């Protein structure tokens, strides 16, 4: 009896190890499949280019409908930056540099990252749920029966809409945030308006800060769209499967955005 008991424990141990291996293999399989889906999406994008209406429709659902949350968040993030920055800078008598602080934080990090996080949870999850549900209700299969490629007709327009929307939303978020910082810093706390703008303008470099922030947001847009589209396309065709895929889109996107952000920052701003 004790003998069989120890073997049982041993079996459990081995099954844990083999389970780990299975999970690793599964992860590689999914990554490979995701890459294949991305390749197919890029190859089948000519339909989106020929019929821009398809993309425009998706830009409406992903981008335009995210406007409110992006603008309001941007305003409040900028206002908080103004408030916190003012209180810290005041200690050193440097509150005239508030504009620099607000602009740098927003342009380089907070603008692209928070916009991407919000976009992933607002629009990325919706795309995953939509494609997943289309799959679960066999709409994708039906398209294939009618010789319509679902990747070209459904996946690619949503992918490109995400890639187009993210940098535009980031620009609006950042502009709104700087206005929020101005509102709190200049109007509410009485920082000198002239030094707020002029110090910002002399510190911020167009190529170094504005363009790099935009490049970041494009990278995030590609990552989010890829994850959202793939999770939807790969979702198990059940109610549970679609809900799991939607959750995974938000979690994976958030982790990828923060990881990518570190990599991109270390590549872009190494001179500082």
């Amino acid at each position: 009896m004790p003998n069989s008991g120890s073997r049982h424990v041993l079996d459990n141990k081995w099954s844990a190890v083999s389970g780990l291996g299975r999970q690793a293999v599964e992860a590689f399989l999914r990554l490979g499949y995701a890459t294949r889906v991305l390749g197919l999406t890029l190859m089948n994008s000519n339909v989106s280019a020929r019929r821009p209406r398809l993309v425009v429709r998706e830009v409406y659902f992903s981008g335009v409908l995210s406007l409110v949350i992006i603008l309001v968040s941007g305003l409040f993030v900028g206002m908080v930056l103004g408030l916190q920055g003012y209180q810290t800078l005041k200690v050193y008598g440097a509150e005239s540099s508030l504009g620099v602080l607000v602009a740098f934080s927003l342009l380089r990090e907070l603008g692209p990252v928070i916009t991407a996080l919000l976009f992933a949870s607002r629009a990325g999850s919706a795309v995953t749920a939509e494609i997943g549900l289309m799959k679960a209700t066999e709409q994708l299969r039906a398209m294939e029966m009618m010789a319509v490629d679902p990747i070209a007709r459904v996946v690619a327009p949503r992918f490109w809409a995400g890639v187009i929307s993210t940098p535009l939303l980031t620009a609006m978020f950042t502009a709104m945030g700087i206005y929020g910082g101005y509102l709190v810093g200049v109007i509410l706390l009485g920082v000198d308006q002239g030094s707020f703008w002029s110090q910002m303008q002399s510190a911020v470099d167009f190529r170094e800060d504005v363009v790099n922030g935009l490049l970041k947001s494009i990278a995030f847009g590609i990552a989010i769209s890829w994850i959202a589209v793939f999770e939807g396309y790969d979702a198990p065709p059940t109610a549970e499967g679609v809900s799991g895929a939607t959750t995974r889109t938000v979690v994976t996107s958030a982790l990828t955005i923060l990881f990518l952000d570190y990599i991109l920052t270390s590549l872009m701003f190494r001179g500082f």
Partner: protein
Amino acid sequence: MERSRLDVWVGVFVLGGLAALLILALKVGNAGDMLGRGDTYTLTAQFENIGGLKPKAAVRSAGVVVGRVATIDYDPETFNAIVVFKIDQRFSRFPVDTFASVYTTGLLGEQYVALAPGGDEKLLVDGARITKTQKAVVLEDLIGQFLTSRAGESSTQ
């Protein structure tokens, strides 16, 4: 009907994004300064020490920005820093005995080059070299001088 209204919204969205980008470029990033930068001419100067001067630092005369530092190089022969300025063509009437100094805005602010025009009739032309220069004041040197002078005082007392 539904279709066209959707198109309008997307148009507004794209326009808003581009407008925000324009605001960031012009109002925040000062790209207008770069794009609208007219003709410039080049001056060089040798400094014994430039402190923390960086490319793109301002070149001021009478406190007004007249140009920017283009490049900073090191001369292994004279052990001096060679600074190249790009000065706005509108301000091309600096005399040859113009004095160039590296100053700091405030106590710990950014460093810039100040041009103090002399009284010579001849003018600096494109590519000319400013011979009269003054090196940057390094804060550590000042503190060191201050400490040694204090030490001298206390030992004599």
